[in-house]
């Protein structure tokens, strides 16, 4: 297992190098000069040349690439073309905001998705099953931005129960530690902020979690149905175990492998793909950060940001692979 883990980690190196080349070249192949992006309608030829020079864009492409990689290895993601600020610390705070949202969304998705799936498998072909799967179908086909706007309209504007945007009330002064506000407020024992942070989390997390919830529900259902037909489940029932025990312990454990794959993939997607949700709920996450960078054509941020997101995606896949072995000991890796 350890050898396998190390081997998998080593395999990441060429993947990461490949990704860095791809992001670097895509950005440089795009039309339009980054120097012009900084200057906009007000650019004179001379000014553009000057800005290009100060950005290092006048050097040959391969020199630019090696400069970039050299810095990257020291943990330096470069500086924003537009603001001149260092990207790494800024990226970190945005990333933590996305983590918080993605974790909350995933918790909702897994809790409701798995239970909905179990429920419909348990009562297969009953009205319970049909309505659960109907919910899943609606969930998977509903556009996130529409759901988000409807949530805002109903819960914030009409009912006034929950705030429509951002992570905390704007008046709240709060010094984050980890950047996960829920965790930070528990650490500091600031219960008012905890409540505020959770209230702000609910709407975006539900919007973001709906699609994975639906996918997980469908996956759980089909996986459960398959396992429920196996002999050992019949034996478990025959032994007189309670239905709850049979389903949540015996069936779910074996049915969970495919579900876990979906959970892993969806988590990766949520981390990078929360742009719409983050934009609608003005959640200052990595998707928003990249979206803003793209609209202002801050190539340095786009390049480094995409690389970071891609790396996280790869890492999550790795973790999921490793988790398989823990859940199902029949899965063995390597030559042991």
């Amino acid at each position: 297992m350890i050898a396998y883990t190390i081997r998998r980690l080593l395999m990441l190196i060429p993947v990461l190098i490949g990704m860095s080349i791809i992001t670097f070249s895509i950005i440089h192949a795009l039309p339009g000069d980054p120097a012009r992006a900084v200057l906009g309608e007000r650019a004179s030829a001379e000014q553009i040349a000057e800005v290009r020079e100060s950005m290092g864009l006048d050097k040959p492409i391969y020199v630019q690439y090696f400069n970039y990689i050299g810095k990257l290895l020291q943990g330096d993601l470069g500086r924003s073309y537009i603001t001149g600020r260092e990207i790494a610390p800024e990226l970190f705070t945005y990333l933590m905001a996305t983590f918080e949202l993605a974790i909350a969304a995933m918790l909702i998705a897994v809790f409701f998705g798995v239970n909905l799936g179990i429920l419909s498998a348990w009562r297969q072909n009953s009205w319970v099953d049909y309505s659960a799967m109907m919910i899943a179908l609606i969930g998977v086909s509903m556009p996130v931005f529409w759901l988000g706007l409807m949530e805002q309209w109903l819960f914030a504007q009409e009912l006034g129960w929950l705030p429509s945007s951002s992570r905390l009330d704007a008046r709240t002064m709060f010094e984050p530690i980890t950047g996960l506000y829920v965790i930070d407020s528990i650490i500091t024992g600031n219960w008012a902020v905890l409540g505020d942070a959770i209230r702000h989390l609910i709407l975006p997390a539900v919007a973001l979690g709906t699609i994975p919830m639906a996918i997980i529900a469908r996956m759980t259902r089909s996986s459960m149905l398959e396992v429920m037909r196996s002999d050992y489940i019949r034996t478990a029932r025959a032994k007189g175990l309670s239905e709850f025990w049979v389903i949540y312990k015996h069936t779910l454990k074996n049915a969970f492998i495919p579900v876990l794959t979906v959970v892993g993939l969806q988590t990766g997607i949520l981390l990078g793909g929360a742009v719409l949700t983050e934009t609608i709920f003005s959640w200052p996450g990595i998707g928003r950060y990249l979206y803003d960078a793209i609209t202002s054509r801050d190539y340095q941020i786009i390049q480094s940001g995409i690389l970071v997101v891609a790396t996280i995606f790869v890492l999550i896949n790795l973790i999921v692979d490793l988790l398989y072995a823990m859940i199902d000991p029949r899965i063995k890796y390597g030559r042991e």
Partner: protein
Amino acid sequence: MSLRKSWIASIALVMVLSLFLAACGGGGDSAGGGEDILIIGRGADSKSLDPIQVTDGESIKVTHNIFETLVKFKEDSTEIEPGLAKEWEASEDGKTWTFYLQEGVKFHDGTDFNADAVVYNFERWMDKDHPEHKGGEFIYYKGMFGGFKGDKGHVIKSVKALDEYTVQFELNYPQGPFLANLAMAMFGIASPEAVKKDPVAFNENPVGTGPFKFKEWKKGESITLVKNENYWREGLPKLDGLIFRSIPDNSARFTALQSGEIDLMDGLNTDDAKQVESNKDLQLFKRPPNTIGYLAFNMEKEPFNNKKVRQALNMAVNKEGLVKTFFGDLGEPAKNPIPPSLWGYNDEVKDYEYNPEKAKELLAEAGYPDGFSFDLWAMPEPRPYMPDGKKIAEYLQANFEKIGVKANIVSYEWLTYLEKTENGEHEAALLGWTGDNGDPDNFLYVLLDKDNAKKPAQNIAFYKSDELHDLLIKAQRLSDQEEREPLYLKAQEIIKEDAPWITLAHATPPVVAKASVKGYVPHATGSESLENVWIEK
């Protein structure tokens, strides 16, 4: 436990949780409750809070409240009034300017504002070898004052402190818009001590003399300013603080305003304007126009080198209809290149009437009785001066069709579009401009003078009129507004007659606020200092 029971248990748990959260809702908002804080919603976060490095509107809105300039614009016009300088005088030749500063003003860090501080700021901006000439490109300094120290066109020769509260500027040549430039929020005076500490990080820890002090910046989320208790203008500011929140989506921002999470916002969808007008809890402001959206004919290419053709196309456009369709209430038809909120606007100029029949006749006179076809370039992205370039191009296309002229709509990615139009690759192209300093020179010279028709050009009509050039240069070298004004009035007549453009519209961007927000006056330049705003209880 049976499965059914476990389900009931989980549902109960969810309900208890919601109750808990609802309960939190009551008490969770209390932080800062008793204070008058204005929360402003806008589309994007600021990029930098060092005003001299700012090129985006979202940054200047914030720094305008932290920093002050030597002179400033009046609350409701682009005329100049005293700021950090209480008086000033110019020499006869317009090359020596002396400013007498307010006394007893302090920066937010407690250091003194004085002549040395002013000199320090200008030297940091103009001298590329200055140790603190760092943190960005100083784009606006370069743009407004003709480059940096040592450059050929540089306006400011020297800045000297004559005594503790007197500063003297020596100019290389007189500059008409000199005072208007100094009033731009980009030229806010920063605390030298704070800049020296770290000129790059200054953009995240701004220190000025303004009515509000910088408190906190949550990136991507909000910027908090608090009242400057020691502000030198008695009794101001009226608010205890300002919070600038970024909410990128226009609809979501409007929802936040209606649900009371923010007090004031810009960037309203055209369709939502009606809803605001019918809601008595909200009030709609229209920012005075400071933009021009236009269609430029490339006068270096046939048939647009023919004045009659350009005039005919001007007559073919139903401008009223166009503005109504695409700007709604949030724009007005344009007859001059400069917006009516600027001094020097010529209201006597008569626009070409909308008359397709006459346009056809004129085309025939010009030698095109059967019309012609050309490429009409349209911007790919919404800009502040034009909400939807492609749709507007389609509208124009339909208008031109009626006089037998066929327009093929062409578009490129935005940066490529700018590059190609600057190099004159287009036949006719849509573009626009947002004013900087409320001076007519900033529109007419930049966009239509022959000096700026050299590639890469900002004058993308490649309109080269010596008559206009002489007027504009003469106006640039005068420093008295009253002497300059008639020159600009004349300039607008010449431009109308030559028709290098179809002037389409001046956008009036909307600002919406709760009805309880009082004393707010939107300024044409796009940002304002909010010391006179208060919230009615």
